[in-house]
């Protein structure tokens, strides 16, 4: 681990240099807000953005991703035999990713990269990706990341953490991947370790002080799963829900997907799309039976998965990094903090 100082005047030049070997992703503003997306050759990431409606999860887990292809032309030798799509996994770097989005990638990794199964598409993308985070000096009102073991300067999942010091960035290089990226940019002005760390500590503490939002989860692990499942409050929680997929799509930790096959003339492809547990189609069986056929079951599923099943299964906290995107984007203001409070304080009546 080391510290590097990057003069902001050299920033654009440096990242330009890295484009030779890295595909760059980063925040870009348009009239509909800010998105984390692949940067065109002449686009510099907007490092001053204060929020992005969508998280950075799509860099590793695109909303639609072709995974297998085949030819339906019987004159071709291996027709109808599905082969892995020719996606490229050359190095890529995400610039200006929020620390909570990087931590979210680690949570998603627990699903895509296990002892039993390795999702080749996600894992190959993950291995090719360097995450250059930007510490949040002015957390927004919806940020409750400090109450879920994350925070505005959380380093988990990042390869480099940047601190914005007005005219320069102070970079904390955390991994060999991060080091390689700094070299590719030609950023090499090292800074004093002790002083830099002290500065990071001050910035982190200042930023954390400005976070007033929080989520209450301390008693969730003690609750009996079926008691929560059968609790009477779900009807009230679900009443306003319109069952859209907004919360799941804006969430950096929601990883569910659906597989589809499509053919165009003689070319066929299999791809996966983000899916949402809010949709009745998510669980509908081929028989027509739907184990989560009504809205309240689906709403319960989302919160139980995030706040209880995940916690019980992995014992690594809840499946939430406190970015607050679902709170802000929900058309009917269903607030995960309020639901967590309801679950956390629930006592079964005998």
């Amino acid at each position, binding site marked *: 681990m080391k510290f590097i100082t990057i003069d902001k005047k050299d920033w654009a030049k440096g990242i330009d240099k890295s484009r030779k070997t890295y595909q760059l992703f980063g925040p870009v503003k348009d009239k509909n*807000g800010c998105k984390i997306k692949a940067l065109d050759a002449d686009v510099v990431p907007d490092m001053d953005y204060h929020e992005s*409606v969508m998280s950075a999860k799509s860099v590793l887990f695109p909303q639609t991703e072709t995974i297998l292809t085949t030819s339906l032309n019987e004159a071709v030798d291996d027709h109808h035999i599905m082969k892995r799509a020719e996606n490229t996994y050359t190095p890529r770097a995400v610039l200006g990713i929020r620390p909570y989005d990087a931590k979210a990638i680690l949570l998603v990794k627990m699903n895509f990269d296990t002892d039993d199964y390795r999702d080749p598409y996600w894992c190959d993308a993950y291995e090719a990706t360097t995450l250059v985070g930007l510490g949040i000096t002015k957390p927004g009102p919806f940020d409750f990341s400090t109450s879920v073991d994350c925070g505005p300067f959380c380093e988990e999942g990042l390869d480099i953490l940047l601190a914005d010091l007005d005219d320069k960035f102070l970079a904390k290089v955390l991994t060999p991947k991060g080091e390689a990226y700094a070299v590719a940019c030609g950023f090499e002005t090292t800074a004093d370790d002790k002083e830099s760390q002290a500065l990071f500590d001050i910035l982190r503490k200042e930023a954390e002080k400005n976070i007033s939002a929080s989520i209450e989860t301390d008693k969730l692990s003690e609750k009996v799963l079926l008691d929560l499942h059968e609790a009477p409050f779900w009807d009230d929680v679900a009443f306003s829900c319109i069952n859209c997929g907004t919360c799941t799509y804006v969430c950096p930790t929601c990883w569910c997907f659906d597989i589809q096959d499509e053919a165009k003339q003689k070319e066929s492809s299999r791809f996966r799309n983000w899916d949402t547990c809010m949709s009745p189609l998510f669980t509908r069986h081929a028989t027509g039976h739907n184990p989560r056929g009504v809205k309240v079951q689906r709403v319960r599923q989302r919160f139980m998965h995030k706040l209880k099943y995940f916690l019980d299964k992995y014992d690594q906290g809840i499946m939430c990094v406190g970015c607050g995107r679902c709170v802000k984007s929900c*058309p009917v203001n269903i607030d995960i903090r309020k639901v967590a409070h309801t679950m956390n304080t629930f006592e079964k009546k005998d």
Partner: protein
Amino acid sequence: MDTCIKKIRELAADLLERGEVERVIGFAKGTIPMATSPIAVGSKQEIEKLVFNSTCGLNLANYARKQKGKIAIIAKGCDSRNLVTHIVENQIQREQIVIIGVPCSGMVDKFKIAALFKDEITGFEEADDTLTVSSLSLTQTLKKQDYLRENCSLCTHKNPVLYDVLAADLMEEQVLENPFPDVDRIEALDPDDKWQHFSDLTKNCIRCYACRNACPICYCPTCFVDEAGPQWVGKGQNKTDVDTFHFLRAFHCAGRCTDCGACVEACPMGINVRDFTRKLNKDALEFFGWEAGLDISKRPPLDSFSPEDPNDFIK
């Protein structure tokens, strides 16, 4: 508008107390600024939860469907028109609902207000026609009239068209020389630019279907995009499939859309979903003299035949 909440609560309490309805559907205060949440209150103790302000932009009509027993519902002009549509389309029975009508001075455009700030909004207050909006770095005083949603600024049915009780005095309706300036702007484009306009519109769509699910007339048990056996529309982010969803949904709303703006209100990506439906509303008015949801005794024009229907297309 802030004074009518007192009256709304009185009326709701009275209906519950007299046992005339089992629940009252309205809006509750949100957990963040500029947000409200639909709620059903069933007891006098819960009445205080009801609020009404310029951020009650969703349409409540769909919450009245499939309710057990008799319910009361708070209805702005547009909500009431969608209740009429629901009654005409047999989704609810007139005797099943008590409509608490609220003459509405319009809802605010959250995206337009958010665009005034560099950081996120932390406070929103309104008094009469003045909005006080603040972020961590800035406080702005705004005239509500300048920040209305586009559909509200073009609204000619602020007063509920069907109600049992009223929470405030009826308002004077505005008369517009041209109710469709937005459609005119698009119609004036040449075909390529027009295509580009609609193409750009769906560019950021994430297919969360919030527009559809917030829409009071989108109540099909299975939407065409959710048909799975066989599947009707591709489910990926392919542009053709995304556009197909928006175009077909709009056509399914033809002659039924009340321009309540719930689709725009719900879209997390800031897409002006109304651009798809507005031309159809204009056609309904020009060809059939029709505005949706004004009369429970009339069926929508594409749902009925009359010899007087325009037939210029037959040559």
